[in-house]
C-alpha cells in the first residue's frame, strides 16, 4: 500500500494524509508538514528530546503483518492493509517516522489526553496573564484556548513559589508560572555549555533554580527567555515595558560580529523595545548572543549626532555637501578615504565610488576580539567581506591606520573622508588629525567628529535598510525598523551626492535603484536584487578570497576555509 518514494524517505500517514518525510523525522515535524498541529511545550527542534510535558500525545499504529509469514493482513472492509493501533497514546516528539507509521491526532482519546495535560499544567499556574510579559506569545495561553477544557475544576489553593528570582544579570524568573518543561536547562547544558540551571525538590514543589552561588550569566542567557513557552523566564530589560502585540517586527542582522546572526527588531511608534533571534538554520539556528540584544540602545544614546556641522556651525545638507566637495577637490591627489566594516554593502560600494572619483584607495579599520565559538566571531566588524566583494578594499584591514598617520606626517594627505570610524581609536594622534581636513559621516560623536570640518550625522543599522556579507560570504539583508532620529541623514543619498560633488558619476541614492548599478558592476552580485534577496540570505562565492588571512575561528555553522591569521 505504501511505497517508499526515495531510499532516505519514509511515508507516514497523519490523520489519513500521507506524506514522505526523511527517516527519523519526529511525528511533530511530520505532522507540521501536512498542516496538522501537534501541540507541545518541552520539545524544541534544536534541543534534545526530554518528553516531559506530555502535551504532544498522539495515537500511533503500524500496518499489520502476519507474525509467522510476514504477509500483510488485509482489512476486508476497506481492502487496505489493516492497521494495528497501540491502545495507549504515545508522545509525538519522541516517536520517529518509520515506514508505514500511522498517526491520529484528532480522536476523542487524544482530545481527552490534551485536556487532561492542560488541566494539570494549569493547576498550579497563577493565571496572571494580565500582568505577564509572555501574554500574546504564550504557548500555554494559546494551547489552553485551543486544546484546554475551557473552565477550571480546581478549587484548592495554588502553590506559592518565588515570583521574582534574579537568575542572572539579564534574566528574571517567576517560578509560579514555570511548567517545568526543562527547555532552559537543556539549552544551558547543550548549547551555551554553562550547566547552572536545574529543578530542585519534587512533584508540585519542583522549582527551577540556579545553583546557589552561581548565576545564569553567560552571553546566551536571554535565549532561555525566548524558548520559555510561558512567562517564567523574562528578560529583565524588557520586563513590564510593552505588550508584545503592539510591537512591529522588522527583520534585521546582529552587527556585533561577522557571524551576522539573524534577528527581529520589535518596535512601536519609532521606539525599539527588544531584539530577538530569527531562525536561520544556516547561520544562527534560533539563537543569538545577549550582547547583540542591547545594541538598540545606540539609537537613543546621548552622544548621537543630530546636527549637520560645517566648520563648527550648523549647516544644511546642501551646504555641507558643497563644502565637503570644495574641500576634497582643493586637496585633490592628497585625499584618503577611510571606509568601515560596519557599513552596508551599498554604502561600501558608494564609498568605493567616492574613492575612485578622488583617485585614491580606501582603508578599513579592523576590530578583532576573541571568538566565542558560537555566535560571536573574532572579527567584530559585520561586513569586512562586503568591502572585499564591492572592491572597496583589496587587503584585509588592520587595527591601526599607521600608514595614514605616516602619510599625514609626511604631508602627503591633506584631507580625509571618514565613514563611521574614529581615527583616534584607530591610532591617529590629535596633532595628526589637526593637520588634515576631515569630512566625517557617522552616527555618534567621537574625537573624529569633534576634529572634523564637515560632520554629516547618519543612520544606525535600525534606521535604514541594507545588506551585510557575513563570515560565510552569505549576503543578508536588514530592514529599516524605526525612522531615523531628527537631523540624521540617510547614508546612501549623502554618499551619492558626495560622489557627484567631487566630480564622480551620478549614482542613485535609493537602495533598490542602487542595487541595479551594483548588480551591473559587480559580477558576484549580478543575479541579486535587494527586493528578491531571500530572508535566509544568499551564499556568494568566497573562493576568490579564500586565501585571505581572516581572523575567524570555528563557530556555529562555520568552519574557516584557511587557518585563522591570529592564533591566540
Amino acid at each position, binding site marked *: 500500500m505504501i511505497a517508499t518514494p526515495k531510499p532516505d524517505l519514509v511515508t507516514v500517514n497523519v490523520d489519513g494524509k500521507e506524506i514522505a518525510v526523511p527517516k527519523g523525522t519526529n511525528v511533530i515535524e511530520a505532522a507540521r508538514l501536512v498542516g496538522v498541529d501537534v501541540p507541545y511545550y518541552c520539545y524544541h527542534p534544536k534541543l534534545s528530546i526530554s518528553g516531559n510535558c506530555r502535551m504532544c500525545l498522539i495515537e500511533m499504529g503500524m500496518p499489520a503483518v502476519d507474525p509467522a509469514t510476514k504477509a500483510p493482513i488485509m482489512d476486508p472492509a476497506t481492502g487496505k492493509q489493516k492497521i494495528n493501533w497501540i491502545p495507549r497514546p504515545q508522545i509525538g516528539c519522541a516517536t520517529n517516522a518509520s515506514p508505514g507509521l500511522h498517526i491520529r491526532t484528532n480522536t476523542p482519546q487524544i482530545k481527552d489526553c490534551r485536556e487532561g495535560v492542560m488541566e494539570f499544567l494549569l493547576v498550579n499556574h497563577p493565571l496572571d496573564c494580565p500582568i505577564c510579559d509572555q501574554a500574546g506569545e504564550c504557548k500555554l495561553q494559546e494551547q489552553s484556548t485551543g486544546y484546554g477544557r475551557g473552565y477550571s475544576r480546581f478549587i484548592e489553593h495554588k502553590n506559592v513559589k518565588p515570583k521574582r528570582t534574579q537568575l542572572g544579570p539579564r534574566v528574571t524568573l517567576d517560578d509560579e508560572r514555570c511548567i517545568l518543561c526543562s527547555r532552559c536547562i537543556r539549552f544551558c547544558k547543550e548549547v551555551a555549555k554553562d*550547566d547552572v540551571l*536545574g529543578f*530542585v*525538590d*519534587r512533584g508540585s514543589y519542583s522549582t527551577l*533554580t*540556579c545553583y*546557589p552561588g*552561581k548565576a545564569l550569566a553567560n552571553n546566551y542567557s536571554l535565549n532561555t527567555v525566548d524558548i520559555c513557552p510561558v512567562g517564567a523566564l523574562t528578560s529583565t530589560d524588557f520586563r513590564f515595558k510593552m505588550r508584545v502585540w503592539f510591537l512591529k517586527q522588522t527583520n534585521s542582522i546582529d552587527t556585533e560580529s561577522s557571524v551576522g546572526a539573524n534577528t527581529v527588531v520589535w518596535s512601536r511608534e519609532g521606539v525599539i523595545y527588544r531584539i530577538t533571534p530569527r531562525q536561520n538554520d544556516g547561520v544562527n539556528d534560533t539563537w543569538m548572543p545577549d550582547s547583540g540584544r542591547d545594541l538598540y540602545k545606540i539609537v537613543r544614546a546621548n552622544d548621537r549626532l543630530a546636527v549637520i556641522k560645517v566648520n563648527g556651525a550648523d549647516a544644511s545638507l546642501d551646504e555641507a555637501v558643497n563644502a565637503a566637495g570644495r574641500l576634497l577637490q582643493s586637496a585633490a591627489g592628497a585625499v584618503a578615504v577611510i571606509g568601515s566594516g560596519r557599513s552596508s554593502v551599498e554604502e561600501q560600494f558608494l564609498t568605493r565610488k567616492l574613492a575612485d572619483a578622488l583617485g585614491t584607495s580606501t582603508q578599513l579599520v579592523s576590530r578583532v576580539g576573541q571568538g566565542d565559538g558560537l555566535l560571536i566571531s573574532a572579527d567584530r566588524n559585520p561586513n569586512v567581506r562586503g568591502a572585499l566583494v564591492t572592491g572597496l578594499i583589496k587587503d584585509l584591514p588592520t587595527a591601526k591606520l599607521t600608514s595614514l598617520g605616516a602619510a599625514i606626517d609626511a604631508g602627503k594627505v591633506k584631507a580625509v573622508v571618514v565613514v563611521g570610524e574614529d581615527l583616534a581609536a584607530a591610532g591617529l594622534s590629535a596633532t595628526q588629525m589637526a593637520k588634515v581636513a576631515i569630512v566625517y559621516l557617522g552616527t555618534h560623536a567621537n574625537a573624529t567628529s569633534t576634529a572634523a570640518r564637515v560632520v554629516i550625522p547618519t543612520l544606525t543599522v535600525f534606521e535604514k535598510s541594507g545588506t551585510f556579507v557575513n563570515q560565510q560570504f552569505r549576503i543578508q539583508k536588514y530592514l529599516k525598523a524605526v525612522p531615523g532620529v531628527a537631523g540624521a541623514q540617510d547614508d546612501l543619498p549623502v554618499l551619492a551626492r558626495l560622489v557627484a560633488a567631487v566630480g564622480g558619476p551620478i549614482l542613485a541614492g535609493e537602495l533598490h535603484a542602487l542595487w541595479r548599478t551594483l548588480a551591473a558592476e559587480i559580477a558576484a552580485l549580478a543575479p541579486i536584487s535587494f527586493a528578491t534577496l531571500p530572508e535566509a540570505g544568499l551564499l556568494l562565492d568566497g573562493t576568490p578570497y579564500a586565501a585571505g588571512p581572516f581572523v575567524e575561528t570555528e563557530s556555529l555553522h562555520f568552519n574557516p576555509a584557511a587557518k585563522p591569521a591570529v592564533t591566540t
Partner: protein
Amino acid sequence: MKLKPETLRRIDEVIPHYPVKRSATLPLLHLIQEDAGYISSEAVEWVAAKLELQPINVLEVVTFYPMFRQKPIGRRHIKVCRTLSCALMGGYKTCESFEKEFNTPRGEVSADGEVTIEFVECLASCGTAPVVMIDDDLHEKVDCAKAKQLSDQIKAESKKR
C-alpha cells in the same frame, strides 16, 4: 570535605560499578550521608567534581529524595511512624512524648546535639503499631510509657559518653 578513609575507599570502589560515572551519584550520596550525617553544599560540589558533573546535577538529586538531609541532625535519630495504622494506635501521642522528654520540637536538633525527632512514613510493621525507629533499631508498640523508657535509656547512654 573530611571523610573517613574507609568511606573514601568505598567511594572509589563503587564508581567503576557503573557504565557512566554519573550513575554513581546516588551511592556516593548515601556513603557520604552515612559518614557525615548529612549532605553539605561542600559535599554536593565534591561529588560533582568526583563524577565530572556540574554541582546543579547533584543538587537536583539531593533535593528530590526526602531522605537526603541537607542539615546536620542529632547523634540519635528518632523516627516515629505516622502512617495510618500507627496514627490510629497513637503514633502522634508517642511523638509528642518524645518531644516533651527531650524538650525539642520535631525536625530540630536538641540543645545538647543528642537527638532529632521526626515523623516518617510507614516502617512496615503495622501489626505492632505504633512503631519507632531509633537509628537502625526498630521498637514496637511504643506507647507513651515506652517512649519515656526509651528516652531515659538514650539520656543514660549520652551521660555515659
